[in-house]
């Protein structure tokens, strides 16, 4: 009897942990399924409507291209700005910073990573926006505003502002990964370079950075994935309008992203077509972010495979 009960408990536990894992898998699958099901009305109505260029709730036209492009553009700009900043800080951290500074910096990076997005949003909206408008947007519009990319009128809320706030949100991601990569450059390679009389920077440039190239690339992709899905900070500072890019290509015009559209419209959407179009946008976002994140993972697997054999 005792043996049976032990065997029973062992099996029960095995099924418990296995079952929980399957529940998690089920959740994941259900996310896809539910989003697909609830976007069906929009797809059935007109499969290509979501790829149109006008979103007009009153007329029942739901073209999501401005939002999709807004998502891609804001994330791309944010990544472009974040990479030099993150790399700069990472190199400073690993090569030049004294121990105390390093300790302080790592705390700062960790803290930044935990600041909620809505906090970035309120800060971006009420503190950064006025400053950016006065000291960056207005002067630029005033001077080179004839270039469409920098043309006015510049309201505070814009694609540029959203990209800027996004930048600061993703810097910690790239930095923490890059720092750990740079610190694990094999000592022998460094020493070889140093013995040739190289300066610290030259060691970094010719040894550490190239060695960590792949990992840094992966961290950038991960940061991109994060930026694509970022909602609150972006929604609060981007202006949520369909001006960009078809009425104005300017970085300083208000724009929208998939996330800002859904966040600002879903709770008041009544019309079935409206709701299902928003859900469809969400499904598109899900697919994009999954693709981006899986590529990052593929790169990381290739790195660890290379490290294991090399």
């Amino acid at each position: 009897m005792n043996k049976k009960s032990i065997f029973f408990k062992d099996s029960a536990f095995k099924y418990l942990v296995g079952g929980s894992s399957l529940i998690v898998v089920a959740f994941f699958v259900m996310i896809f399924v539910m989003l697909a099901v609830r976007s069906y009305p929009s797809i059935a109505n007109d499969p290509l409507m979501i790829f149109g260029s006008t979103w007009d709730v009153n007329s029942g036209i739901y073209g999501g291209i401005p939002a999709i492009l807004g998502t891609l553009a804001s994330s791309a700009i944010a990544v472009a700005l974040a990479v030099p900043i993150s790399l700069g800080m990472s190199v400073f951290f690993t090569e030049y910073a004294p121990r105390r500074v390093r300790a302080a910096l790592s705390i700062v990076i960790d803290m930044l990573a935990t600041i909620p997005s809505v906090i970035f949003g309120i800060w971006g909206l009420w503190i950064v926006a006025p400053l950016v408008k006065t000291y960056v947007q207005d002067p630029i519009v005033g001077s080179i505003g004839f270039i469409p990319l920098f043309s006015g009128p510049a309201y505070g809320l814009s694609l540029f502002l959203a990209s800027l706030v996004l930048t600061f949100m993703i810097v910690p991601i790239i930095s923490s990964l890059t720092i750990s990569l740079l610190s694990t450059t094999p000592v022998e390679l460094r020493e070889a370079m140093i013995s040739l009389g190289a300066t610290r920077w030259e060691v970094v440039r010719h040894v550490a950075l190239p060695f960590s190239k792949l990992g840094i690339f992966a961290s950038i992709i991960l940061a991109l994935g994060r930026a694509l899905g970022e909602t609150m900070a972006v929604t609060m500072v981007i202006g949520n309008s369909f001006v960009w890019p078809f009425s104005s290509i300017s970085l300083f015009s208000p724009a929208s992203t998939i996330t800002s559209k859904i966040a600002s419209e879903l709770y008041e959407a009544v019309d079935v077509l409206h709701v299902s179009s928003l859900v469809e946008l969400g499904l598109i976002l899900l697919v994009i972010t999954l693709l981006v994140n899986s590529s990052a993972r593929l790169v990381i697997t290739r790195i660890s495979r290379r490290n294991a054999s090399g």
Partner: protein
Amino acid sequence: MATKLVTERLSAWFGKKQVLKDISIAFEERQVTALVGPSGCGKSTFIRCLNRMHELNPGARVEGKAFLDGIDIYGMDPMDVRRKIGMVFQKPNPFPNMSISDNVVAGIKLSGEKSKADLDAIVERTLKSVGLYDEVKDDLRRSGASLSGGQQQRLCIARALAMEPEVILMDEPTSALDPASTSRIEDLIRKLKSEITVIIITHNVGQAARISDKTAFLYLGELIEYNDTKEFFESPKSPITERYITGRFG
């Protein structure tokens, strides 16, 4: 002397690689048998076949037979086997998150069955039998990992003994310890054999000569020689045995 544990043509594999070849050996009750031989020759694998831990490795396979008191070990419930045949490892492994007394009775408390035994009495008895009681009795609630290496190993032996096994397998129990601890444990083994059967793997031929009644020599997965210890060392029958004993290879 009755035989306690018998193997008949016991063979074992790791995947495709055969590490034990047809080992047939009979261990006497309440004696100390030493298993000697160069590293990697299957000694650890052999004793792990006896307490059915080898089969837990992925890709592991066992063939042949093993009997405890005439009962087929591979027909029994594996957990039963392990309670009757205890094991002590080379590197002491007390549970760090448990106190000394909890370590001693871990096998009993966590066996999945409710035990009505008086655990405190068992703790005192086994710690005394391994000579550890006086050293730790002031605070039995200390973590098991807070002891010195030699003390930790004696704790592990106590932990195994608390299960009241009939056989105890020891895989190089003193090779990670200093000489003083080593000799204490050797004394302990000499004392233990009056109650249970001991099979001890040792790298140290001197140790085998000191404490064992019988010695078996395993080389490249095969049993080369098995004899009373005195005769094993004084007049080895196989030339390989002789070369090993005289240290020509190790």
